[in-house]
C-alpha cells in the first residue's frame, strides 16, 4: 500500500505573529513546528504501515526551510520526503495551495492520502477536501479512527452530535484530527538517518496538469483586504477579597446587571 501524507510547517502560535507589508504572513520571522493535525495524520499513516506494511511519502509545500518538517517526519518513520517550493507558488490561498499539492501528488502512486484537518495558522480546514476534489477521489474529513479492509478504507467520521462509520473505495483522501492518536517520538537512529536522507525538491515545472493561472498569489481567488492584530475589549475590574466578600461582590454585580 502507498500512502501520501501532506504536512505543513506552521508558525508556533505561542511565538507571536508577524506580517509582511502586503498583509500576508511573514513566515520567515517566526518559530515553526509541524502542524499538530498533520502530525496526527502522519502517525495514522505510520500505524497503517506498522500494521499492514506501506510506503509512506510525506509532501510539504513551503519555503526551503520547510525541509525541516520532512526530516522530522522521516525521523518518525516516513520513507520519502518531497518539498514543493518555488517563488511563483508564494502567497497562495487554499485554492492555489490545493492546486499545487494536487499537481505534485499526480506524480505519485497512492492508495490513501492523509492530511490534517486544519493548520493552526489558517484554521481553514479547506486544503484536504480541495485536493480530493482536484484529484477526483472521495474525501472523508474529521477522521477519528481508520482501518483498512481489502481495497476499502473504513473510517469513523466525527460530527457535532454523532459519528458515521464510512466505507470508501481507495484511492481516498482522509483528513485527520489531532485527537486521532498520540504521535510517536523521533528515534535517535531515525534522526541520524533522516539527517542524511535525500529530500526530493520539486518546483513549478514538476507540477502535473496545473495551469499557471491557478498558482501563487495571482492564482488565488481570495485576496486580503485588511489584516491586523485583534483588538480586544479591555480588562474590567479585578478584586481580591475573602470568600464572603467575593460572594457579595458577585451578587451585587448580578443585581446591577438585572440577572437576578
Amino acid at each position, binding site marked *: 500500500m502507498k500512502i501520501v501524507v501532506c504536512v505543513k510547517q506552521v*508558525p508556533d*502560535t505561542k511565538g*507571536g*505573529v508577524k506580517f509582511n507589508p502586503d498583509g500576508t504572513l511573514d513566515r520567515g520571522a517566526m518559530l515553526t513546528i509541524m502542524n499538530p493535525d498533520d502530525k496526527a495524520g502522519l502517525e495514522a499513516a505510520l500505524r497503517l504501515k506498522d500494521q499492514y506494511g506501506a510506503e509512506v511519502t510525506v509532501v510539504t509545500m513551503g519555503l526551503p526551510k520547510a525541509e525541516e518538517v520532512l526530516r522530522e517526519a522521516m525521523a518518525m518513520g516516513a520513507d520519502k520526503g518531497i518539498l514543493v517550493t518555488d517563488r511563483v507558488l508564494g502567497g497562495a*490561498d*487554499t*485554492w492555489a495551495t490545493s492546486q499545487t499539492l494536487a499537481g505534485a501528488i499526480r506524480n505519485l502512486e497512492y492508495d490513501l492520502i492523509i492530511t490534517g484537518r486544519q493548520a493552526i495558522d*489558517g*484554521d*481553514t*480546514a*479547506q*486544503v484536504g*477536501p*480541495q485536493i*480530493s*476534489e482536484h484529484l477526483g*477521489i*472521495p*474525501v472523508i474529513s*474529521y477522521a477519528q479512527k481508520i482501518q483498512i479492509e481489502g481495497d476499502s478504507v473504513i473510517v469513523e467520521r466525527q*460530527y457535532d*452530535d*454523532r*459519528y*458515521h*462509520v*464510512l*466505507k470508501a*473505495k481507495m484511492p*481516498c483522501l482522509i483528513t485527520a484530527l489531532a485527537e486521532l492518536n498520540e504521535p510517536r517520538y523521533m528515534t535517535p537512529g531515525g534522526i541520524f538517518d533522516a539527517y542524511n536522507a535525500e529530500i526530493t525538491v520539486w518546483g513549478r515545472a514538476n507540477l502535473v496538469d496545473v495551469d499557471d493561472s491557478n498558482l501563487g498569489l495571482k492564482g*488565488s*481567488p*481570495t*485576496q*486580503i*483586504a*485588511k*489584516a491586523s*492584530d*485583534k483588538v*480586544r475589549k*479591555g*480588562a*474590567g*475590574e*479585578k*478584586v*481580591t477579597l475573602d*470568600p*464572603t466578600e*467575593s*460572594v457579595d461582590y*458577585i*451578587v451585587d*454585580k*448580578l443585581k446591577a*446587571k438585572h*440577572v*437576578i
Partner: protein
Amino acid sequence: MNIQDYKGVFVFAQQVDNVLSGIALELVGKGKDLAKDLNTEVTAVLVGSDVKGLADELAEYGADKVIVVDDPELKEYRTEPYAHALSSVIDEFKPEIFLVGATAIGRDLGPRVSARIHTGLTADCTQLDIGDFPINPVPGKEQLHNQLLMTRPAFGGNTIATIACPDFRPQMATVRPGVMQKAPKEAGKKAVVVEFNPGFTPNDKYVEILEVVKAVSDVADIMDAKILVSGGRGVGSPENFKILEDLAEVLGGTVSCSRAVVDAGWKPKDLQVGQTGKTVRPNVYFAIGISGAIQHVAGMEEADVIIAINKDETAPIFEVADYGIVGDLNKIVPALTEKLKAELAAK
C-alpha cells in the same frame, strides 16, 4: 465568468434528521441583511430527503425563496451527493454570495463545492459586510463596490483578517455558528418554493455509510444558554463539577467547560467552549478555574458579562473578564450558590 450574471444571496439551510440546524436560521438572518444592502433577495437552499416541509420555517425567519433539492440519496449527509447538489444549484441559479455554516458538515462541504466551481472560500467568518475593495482607493487599481467583505480570526484568535473575492462568483464563506443573529419570526410568512433535482447517480466518490452512532446526550445546547457556568482544569476533578452544576441550577443556567476538561475526559466535547469547541454569547459567562488561553477566549469573549474566578491573579482570563475575583473557587462557588438561593427565595 461574467460577474454581472451572478445575483442574489444564497445560504445553505443545513438540516440534520430533518430538523433545521440553528445555523440555517442565523444565515437566513444575516443573508437578509446583506440582500438588503445589495437590493436583492435571500434564498435558502434546502438539501435532504423529504425536507420540503422545512421551507415554511425558513420563510418565517426571512427567506424570500427556498430551493429544495430532495432525493433519497441525500438522507444522511455525505460529501459527494451534497457537493453535487450545491454546485448544481450554483451553476443553475448563479448567486453572487453563497454562505455555508462552519459546522462539521459545512467545513467539509464548502471546500469541496468551491473547488468544483472554482471560486474562493473564506473559512469561519465572524463578520460579513458589503463594501468596497480595496477598502481604501489605491492609485492605478479600480475600486470595486458592493463586494462581500469577509472577516475572520486566524492564528487561534491572535489576528483578524478581512478577505474579498473580487474576480470570482459566488463569493463564498463559511460562517461560525452562534455569531450571526436570526431575524425575528414572522408567523405565517411564505416564501417562493422552487424544487430542483440535478439527478444523483452513485459513483466512486460516493462513500457508504455503514453505521450512524448518535452520541447519547440529554444536555442542553450550550449555544442557546443565557447563563453559562464554565469550568476549567482548576475545578480539579470531574466530581467537583457538582458545585458548578449547583450554581447553574440556581440561576437556570447550563454548565460548559474548557478544552483541558474535555481532553482530561471529565466532560463531553459538546460542552466545550472555544476555538475547537463552540462559540457562545450568553448574557452571563462564569469562567471558573479557567486560565483563559486565547483559544478559549475566542469562543466566549462576546458574552455580555464575564465573571472570572481564579486563584492565579496572573491568569489571562482576567484580561477579558468584566469582573474578576482572585480566590479559591472551592470556597466561593458553593457560598455563592447558597447566597443566590436565599436572595431568590426572598423575592
